[in-house]
C-alpha cells in the first residue's frame, strides 16, 4: 500500500486517500488476504491500471467548479473499468479473483454516495473498448458488464439508479446467470443492464460481491496486448511520477508573484513654477555671458592670427637684418599658438557652455521639484 501510495502521486490527494482506504477495506474484509493481493498483481501494475482510467483533468475542473460554487466535496468520478487479470484457468475459484479493482472502488463509492444521498460522479475513464463477455464462462459473469455500459452511457447517473450490482452473493450468481444467458443470446448491452438493474432492485440487497467478467471473455491476443501495454505503462508511469513533484514545485514557484518595486515621479507644480520664474532669467543671462565670452575669445584668436600674418609680412618686407626677422617670426609663432588656444576655448564655451547651462538648469529643477515616490503609495 505504501508503494501504491507512492505510485499514485499523480492523483489528487483525496482521490488517492480514498482509493487506498477502499483497498485497505477490501483487504480487511477479504477472507484470504494473500489471494486478494495476488489478484491485485504488483503495485506498479495496479497503479498503471488506475492511472489509465483516472481523469485528472476533469477531476481538476470538477474541483475548481466545486470551489467556485462553494459546495462541500463531492464524491469523485468513478467509471467502471475492468482490470486485466491472470488467466482464469490458473486462478483459484475465489470470489475476488476476477475483480476489477476500479469496479470495486466504484461500487463502494457508489454505495457511499447512495447512503449520503449525493450525486455520484465517476472518477475513472470508462475504457470504450470493453470486450463483450462471452458465454463460455457464464458463472463468472456479473452485472459488471451492464454496469460498465451504463457508466459509459450515463457516467453521472445517480447511484441508486446504477446500484444494480448490490445484491447478496447468491443473488449475484443469479444475476450472473441471467446476464450470461442474455449474453449467450447475444442481446445488446443495454438490455443486459436493464436485466441487472431489475434483479438488483428486486433483491434490494446492500452489498454484493462483484465478480468481473473473466479474462477469458477477451481474446487471448487482447489479453497479451493489454499486459504488454501495462508493462510498458509501468516504465512510462514511473518517470512521469518522478517528474510530477518537481513540476508541482515549479508551478508553485511560478504562482508566487514577486511584487515589483516600481517608482513614479511626483512633480511639485508650485515649486516648479517658482523655479522657472527664477531659472529662466538666470539661465538666459548665463547663456548670454557664455556667448559673450565665446565671441570675445574667438575674436581675440582671430585678431591675433591677423596681427601675426601682418607681422610676418612686415618682417619679411621691411626688416633687413636676419636676427630681427627671427625675433618677429618667433613672436608671430607664439601669437599663433595663443590664438589657436583662444579659438579652441571659444568654441568649447560656445558648444559645451550653453548646453551645459541648459542641462544644469533642468537637473537642478528636477532635483528641486520632482520627487521619486514608490508606486504603491
Amino acid at each position, binding site marked *: 500500500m505504501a508503494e501504491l501510495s507512492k505510485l499514485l502521486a499523480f492523483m489528487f490527494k483525496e482521490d488517492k486517500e480514498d482509493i487506498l482506504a477502499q483497498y485497505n477495506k477490501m483487504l480487511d474484509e477479504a477472507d484470504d488476504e494473500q489471494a486478494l493481493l495476488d489478484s491485485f498483481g504488483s503495485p506498479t501494475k495496479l497503479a498503471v491500471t488506475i492511472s489509465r482510467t483516472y481523469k485528472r483533468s476533469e477531476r481538476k475542473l470538477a474541483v475548481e467548479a466545486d470551489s467556485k460554487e462553494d459546495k462541500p466535496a463531492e464524491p469523485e468520478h468513478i467509471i467502471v473499468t475492468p482490470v486485466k487479470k491472470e488467466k482464469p484457468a490458473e486462478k483459484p475459484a475465489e470470489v475476488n479473483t476476477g475483480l476489477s479493482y476500479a469496479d470495486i472502488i466504484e461500487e463502494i463509492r457508489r454505495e457511499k454516495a447512495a447512503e449520503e444521498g449525493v450525486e455520484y460522479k465517476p472518477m475513472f475513464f470508462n475504457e470504450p473498448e470493453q470486450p463483450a463477455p462471452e458465454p463460455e464462462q457464464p458463472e463468472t459473469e456479473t452485472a459488471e458488464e451492464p454496469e460498465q455500459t451504463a457508466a459509459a452511457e450515463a457516467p453521472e447517473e445517480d447511484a441508486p439508479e446504477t446500484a444494480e450490482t448490490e445484491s447478496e452473493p447468491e443473488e449475484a450468481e443469479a444475476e450472473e446467470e441471467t446476464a450470461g444467458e442474455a449474453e449467450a443470446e447475444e442481446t445488446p448491452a443495454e438490455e443486459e443492464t436493464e436485466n441487472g438493474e431489475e434483479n438488483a432492485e428486486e433483491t434490494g440487497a446492500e452489498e454484493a460481491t462483484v465478480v468481473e467478467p473473466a479474462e477469458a471473455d477477451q481474446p487471448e491476443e487482447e489479453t497479451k496486448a493489454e499486459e504488454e501495454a501495462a508493462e510498458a505503462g509501468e516504465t512510462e508511469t514511473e518517470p512521469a511520477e518522478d517528474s510530477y513533484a518537481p513540476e508541482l514545485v515549479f508551478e508553485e514557484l511560478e504562482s508566487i508573484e514577486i511584487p515589483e518595486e516600481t517608482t513614479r515621479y511626483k512633480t511639485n507644480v508650485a515649486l516648479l513654477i517658482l523655479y522657472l520664474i527664477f531659472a529662466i532669467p538666470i539661465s538666459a543671462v548665463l547663456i548670454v555671458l557664455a556667448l559673450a565670452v565665446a565671441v570675445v575669445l574667438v575674436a581675440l584668436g582671430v585678431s591675433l592670427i591677423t596681427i601675426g600674418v601682418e607681422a610676418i609680412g*612686415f618682417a619679411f618686407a*621691411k*626688416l633687413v637684418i636676419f*636676427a*630681427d626677422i*627671427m625675433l618677429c*617670426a618667433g*613672436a608671430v609663432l607664439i601669437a599663433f*599658438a595663443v590664438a589657436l*588656444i583662444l579659438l579652441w576655448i571659444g568654441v568649447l564655451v560656445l558648444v559645451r557652455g550653453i548646453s551645459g547651462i541648459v542641462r544644469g538648469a533642468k537637473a537642478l529643477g528636477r532635483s528641486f521639484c520632482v520627487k521619486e515616490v514608490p508606486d504603491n503609495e
Partner: protein
Amino acid sequence: MSKVWKVISTVAIVALILGALCILAGFVTGGDVQRVKDVFFASYDIENKINALRSAMGIMALN
C-alpha cells in the same frame, strides 16, 4: 572632442616652442627689439598718427 583638443594643444605647444627658439635665435644672432620698433614706426608712420590722435583727444577734452 578630446582628440581635437589633443591635436590643438600639441600644435600650440609646438608653435610656442618654435617661437621661443626663434626669439632665442634672434637674440643670439644680434637682434634688437628697439630697431624693429623704429622700422615699424617709420614704415607705417605711427608717430604722426599717435600725435593726431592725442590732439583729437585734447580737443574733445577741452569741449
